[in-house]
């Protein structure tokens, strides 16, 4: 596999972004954190590639 994609890659990113907000609807803060943690693990497993995952961790940490 190649490198982490850091250019736009979701065909309709507004739709995805809305869905991401909706899935958090009605949750209190701990439940939101828990959901995000599950989401991270699900996506990470889908990616599977340790290099890409490492780059994603770095990118996330750097962006703050």
């Amino acid at each position, binding site marked *: 596999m190649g490198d982490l994609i850091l250019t736009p890659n979701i065909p309709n990113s507004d739709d995805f972004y809305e869905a991401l907000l909706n899935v958090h609807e009605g949750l209190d803060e701990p439940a939101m954190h828990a959901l995000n943690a599950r989401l*991270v*693990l699900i996506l990470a497993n889908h990616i599977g590639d340790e290099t890409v995952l490492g780059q994603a961790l770095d990118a996330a940490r750097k962006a703050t």
Partner: protein
Amino acid sequence: MIAARYQTAFRLYPYEKVTDQEASSAVRHPVVIIGGGPIGMGLALDLGKKGIRCLVLDDHDGVGMGSRAICFAKRTLEICDRLGCGDPMVEKGVVWNLGRVYREQEEIYNFNLLPEGGHKRPAFINLQQPYFEQFIVEQIREQQAAGAPIKIRGQNLLTKLEQKPDHILLNVDTPDGPYQIEAEYLVACDGASSPTRNMLGLGFEGRVFEDNFLIADIRMNADFPVERRFWFNPPFNPNETALMHKQPDDIWRLDFQLGWDIDRKVELDSAKISKRVSEMIGKDIEFELVWTSIYTFRCCTMKDYRHGRIFFAGDSAHQVSPFGARGANGGIQDIDNLGWKLAAVLDGGAPDALLDSYHDERKYGAIENIKNSSRSADFLTPRNAAHEMFRDAVLDLVKDFEFAQPMVNSGRLSMPCTYDASPLNSADALVGGPTRTRPGSPLSDAPLSSGYLLDHVAGQFAILAINCDAPEVFEIDGISVEVHSLSGADDSEGHLAERYLGRSGSALYLVRPDQHVAGRWPAFDADTVATAIQKAIGRE
């Protein structure tokens, strides 16, 4: 002064006065082992069987009370088979392969530690540590009777040591007063608080984990399954973990996580412990408390496992959390590694450099054990909100999705170490050879028409010639190599081919005395094998 620091379960080597104590000058011994725990005794047995004179000094006269280590791994049993004490362990021990993980009361995951057949030994047995040690000492007694040059001196306390150019001078205290001896080599197997380490002023660095665990070994007649059962947040120990495991003699190991801020005295009150136990096993099951203890743990290692003529092995060199059963199992791999090297240097003309590889290989193994055991501890004892959040996310996901199973960490149970990058390895030259038997790895067992493979390859350099020609005997510079010629006819179940040939039609393996692969090729070539042997004894 000799004073008992702990109670003994079995008195195996009562104090006896010896002539060394009256000698006018200190008597010299080729190898002195400090500490007669499982690691020191294992080393003495290995050296003695190889004809190397060795002396064990222990400040007690037997095996300490309390079961402590209970899980002994397949590799440990294979090493004990080589040492001649595997059978009584497996006969007495409780065999298990299956682990189950529960969250609250629901099973969320189970694992089989030995999902394949074709091995003589099971993934694990449970056996109280005192029995494990006793069986080693019994085998030492048998070997002594057959002439093995092993000496054990109980109630002999090391009090001081001095490193000299060609030996070490030891001061030893006994019930009859002090005496001195000299050691050409000294192996410190004196446990996690190693006095030898302290006398030399050497460090022991790592991490302390802020958690307490209560062990209750109980005797009961109950038909709970013979499996490792582990709970996250069970109703009988809310917000903490718990473990249940069977031992021989109708003894069960219960382990309760308690958290950091506890009052030890309160928690060790037997009425309180009995109440906890009843809540776990059910109010109407009768039981008796056999041994209780609260432990905390740390993951630490020394920087160097060799200091001149002094070596560190077992808990003196490294300590891990109990999750994963890597303490005694890791220590036994230490002496498996050191025994043949000391023998080769003392007796076989191998260079001193071979002994450096003990540190290289076993430090590598210890780092792997510390890494695994720290990760388990972090999963069980989340150190901050993020740790806890992801731990809980894994436990949430695993009920519905298989992908989360490998992330559940209730202990990564001891596996043998593969010495990748060891200076003793020759580069892998078997195209298509299986990864599991690459240079540096311990042999995988396989059933042959003549019995199990590991029983044939025990204690000296060996060649496995599979579907290829090899001489019947091979000798180089005084090292004799036993040659095992094998073919499909020996391998009716196909395990040998699967584990040693892979996609190759033939293979030639060079195996070290500790059953680790030193090199492999598609066919026998005398020069290539000779070079590999030189490399494997540190002559390069």
